[in-house]
């Protein structure tokens, strides 16, 4: 089970965090914008296609990898790409939100909401956690 990348966007589409754990091919220019636009459109599409109210998308796959998505009511978007073996990552992303984003950033007096995330408390804790997946 391999984690390829992890990113976090805020509600304005600003990429707050991006980390490659295992990514053989290079990222394209402006990929963050593409990613955000894709997520935004997919969300809207999924909502309008849904047979019942509520429920958003949380994963989508290609033949090569799977993309997992978790959005908080406060507009934070957690995106993780993994190999196809990874099942439902919602709990993992929620854990990252609750235990790393909240504990290491929200409660960090030296970090302001909306700032790019480079604080070692967060980055190191997240890396250690991802290594266990």
């Amino acid at each position, binding site marked *: 089970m391999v984690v390829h990348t992890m990113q976090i966007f805020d*509600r304005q*589409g600003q990429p707050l965090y991006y980390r490659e754990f295992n990514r053989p091919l290079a990222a394209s220019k402006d990929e963050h914008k593409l990613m955000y636009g894709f997520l935004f459109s997919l969300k809207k599409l999924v909502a309008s296609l849904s047979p019942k109210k509520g429920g958003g998308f949380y994963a989508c796959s290609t033949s090569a990898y799977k993309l997992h998505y978790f959005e908080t*009511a406060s*507009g934070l978007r957690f995106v993780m790409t993994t190999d196809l073996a990874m099942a439902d990552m919602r709990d993992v992303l929620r854990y990252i*939100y*609750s235990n790393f984003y909240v504990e290491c950033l*929200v*409660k960090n007096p030296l970090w302001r*909401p909306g700032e790019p995330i480079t604080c070692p408390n967060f980055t190191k804790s997240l890396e250690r956690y991802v290594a266990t997946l």
Partner: protein
Amino acid sequence: MRRVGEAAFSKVEKINSELFSLTYGAIVTQLLKDYEEVDATNTQLEKMGYNIGVRLIDEFLAKAQVGNCGNFGETAEVIAKVGFKMFLGITAEVVGVSEKEFSLQLPENPLAEFVELPEQYGSLAYNNMLCGVLRGALEMVQMRVECSLTKDALWGDEVTEIRVVLKEMMEEEYVDDD
């Protein structure tokens, strides 16, 4: 909702409220010294509350097991029974609910433990920081609101009451700046 609130409160680390209320009181005193008048102090308290609310919302969303709220009334219940419980250890009552507004009544208030307003500051909105916290937190979940302290035990009222008025549900926009 009450049980959700109690569950959330039981999971968080707690401290004796005295440290909190004394610190709040000292902050209010300092602000009065700095601004020398009530209105400016009220405004500053609300601003500080806003800054806190903007952060606090994420701890709330992460730790409280609440789903999305269907309407403004549900939002009110969640704030009153879960939000207030989780952070202040008290449960508020929701009154006067409509589509666009509600009021929260606090039967007791840890911020104002043992506080008495001296006469020259009789109109101080001592609890205004709560209004700011609500405004900041709700803005992060796409609701632009106006909050005001409508009743205060420190003003001689029976309860402390905050009115929350929905100004706008903010739509998500995607701005492509290319």
